[in-house]
């Protein structure tokens, strides 16, 4: 059984002009010890999904159906008290976007982690301090820096501290939202390497949210490509990257230049994502899609399996896309 099963999850934001369907019937699973990447352009609902899973909705956000099941237990109907006590941080923790700002500047870094442990677990302060020292060692920070403030840490160090905090209560699943976006390439590589090693050592599951498909290619087992609040394609990373079945997934994969490849044109994906207050009819991607026809404009494609191995896609033309022709060349 999967560690986490998300089914038909819908989370909308209420605005003066109607509902913004940020997460609209999204389904996927995460297995114990595996990493799932969530990818898409800005505004496709990636970060909204993370907050929906942790039940950290902004005041105008609400659930409109679907379920999130962890080890057979439904998380969405659980009382807030129980969710806070049993799930948030103890089973599912999070590495936030912009970790540089996720630490409180007026408290010592070590103390902030001790505080997180004491808040969630019934242990003595000594035990929490000891664990924090261990966590520092685990993520590659010298434990002597326990008493330093965030401004004394470099960007990469702060990111490591935030990872240590996410690991503080031995969670099973870590949700990492753009964990390395603000960092330089070299530090980015160092951090992602550390995360990969930690995952293996602790048998951690991870959900990695990023716009960067190359990061997912290097770190994840499976991938969900989201478009306008919906799942466009979902499957094993090798399947999705090498035999994409959705025109959007294919265009997105193509637009990432490969430094190891011979010099070519840098590809792009024309157009921009729709306004989620009034998404296009039928397939939400149809206004940007080179294969769109009448059916695509009117009928919303169901998520279906193509070619086995749980490779799922929501596209009427998946078979044409998978034939491998270059549908995006103009």
């Amino acid at each position, binding site marked *: 059984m999967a560690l986490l099963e998300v089914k038909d999850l819908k989370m909308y934001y209420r605005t003066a002009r109607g509902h913004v369907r940020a997460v609209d019937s999204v389904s996927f699973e995460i297995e114990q010890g595996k990493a799932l990447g969530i990818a898409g352009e800005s505004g496709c609902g990636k970060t909204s999904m993370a907050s929906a899973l942790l039940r950290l909705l902004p005041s105008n956000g609400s659930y409109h159906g679907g379920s999130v099941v962890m080890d057979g237990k439904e998380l969405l109907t659980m009382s807030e008290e129980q969710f806070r006590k049993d799930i948030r941080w103890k089973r599912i923790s999070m590495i936030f976007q912009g970790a540089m700002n996720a630490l409180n500047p007026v408290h010592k870094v070590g103390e902030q982690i001790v505080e997180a442990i004491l808040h969630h677990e019934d242990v003595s302060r000594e035990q929490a301090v000891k664990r924090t020292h261990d966590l520092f060692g685990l993520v590659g920070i010298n434990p002597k820096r326990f008493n330093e403030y965030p401004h004394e840490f470099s960007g990469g160090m702060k990111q490591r501290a935030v990872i240590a905090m996410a690991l503080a209560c031995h969670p099973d699943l870590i949700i990492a939202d753009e964990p390395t976006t603000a960092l330089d390439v*070299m530090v980015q590589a160092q951090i992602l390497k550390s995360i990969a090693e930690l995952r293996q050592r602790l048998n951690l599951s991870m959900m990695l949210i990023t716009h960067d498909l190359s990061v997912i*290619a290097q770190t994840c087992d499976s991938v969900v490509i989201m478009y306008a609040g919906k799942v466009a394609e979902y499957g094993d990373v090798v399947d999705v990257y*090498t035999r994409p079945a959705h025109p959007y997934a294919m265009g997105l994969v193509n*637009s990432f230049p490969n430094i190891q490849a011979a010099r070519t044109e840098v590809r792009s994906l024309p157009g921009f994502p729709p306004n989620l207050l009034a998404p296009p009819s039928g397939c939400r991607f149809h206004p940007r899609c080179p294969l769109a026809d009448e059916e695509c404009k009117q009928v919303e494609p169901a998520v279906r399996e193509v070619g086995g191995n749980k490779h799922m896609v929501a596209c009427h033309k998946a078979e044409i896309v998978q034939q491998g022709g270059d549908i995006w060349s103009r």
Partner: protein
Amino acid sequence: MVAMTAIAKNELKRGDVILQVKDLVKYFPVRTSFLQSLRGKEQLAVRAVDGVSFDVYKGEVLGVVGESGCGKTTLARTLLRLTDATSGSAILEGVDILSRNHAEMKELRKKLQVIFQDPYESMNPRMDVQTIISEPLRIQGIVNSVNAARDIVASVLADVEMLPPEEYMSRYPHELSGGQRQRVAVARALALDPDFIVADEPVSMLDVSIRGEVLNLMLTLSRSRDVTFVYITHDLATARHICDRIAVMYLGKMVELGTADEVIINPRHPYTRALIGAVFVPDPRHRGFADILRGEIPSPVNPPSGCRLHPRCPHAIDICRTTEPEFITYEGTHRAACHLAGQLKPRQA
């Protein structure tokens, strides 16, 4: 189209040297207290650009690549005279940019234009597209009204593939997507028919899916109009695909310079190698990070002795700690500043 007045238009051919930068230095003084200065404490400085020399050829796209704090943006701002250099020279078509006075600089800006990083910050939200694009023409006195610039605006909008141009002329920035805004920024830079454009991280604020549009536009313009581009970026992967040559900077120094193939396929400098190894490949069948360096970029206030990379370099030997390596030319035009550059084994593909 545009009458050149004070500066005669040199007839340079593709591939001639258009800009020659020599020993360019930019230090930013670190503020010290009055008391400290009374005590005769040495004045500290951030050595943002610390002795950089290179040539740029007409019609090429030169990538300047490095991590934050390596001095690439300061280099760009110094060449544009948005900040004054501490010393050195930068000769653009026979004229030293760095020693021009204010009036001469205004004249020179007809040839020398810029594209900024953030298309959300670099345009006046209260101006429409034709006002934005015609502003440099009005400032230079080439036209005296927005209307008089209509033809030029339409032609540069067509150059950046915003068609039909009339459709976009009266739109405001908020009515455009990020990619469209950046095209308008390119059009504005083109309005004066410049020879030389500095683009400082022109696509880093855009979604990856549309970066290619703007980058390919730069490449196309460099070919069709012989415009020279200096493309400042931290993204080695895009530089590999759109630049003719790539320069790599580390802590205020240029450490490697060569054609895109020379630098990417056969990097001479350990830092370039590490930078290439740290770039993620969007292919799950090829995993792993090679040659990543330990630690982070040190403070440019007090850079390491000898070769600035030595504390992080896996190959460092004694001479690296004491003697600064020269920026030596190897085969052809390939240059690198490393004592061991001739001895490193080729990178595995």
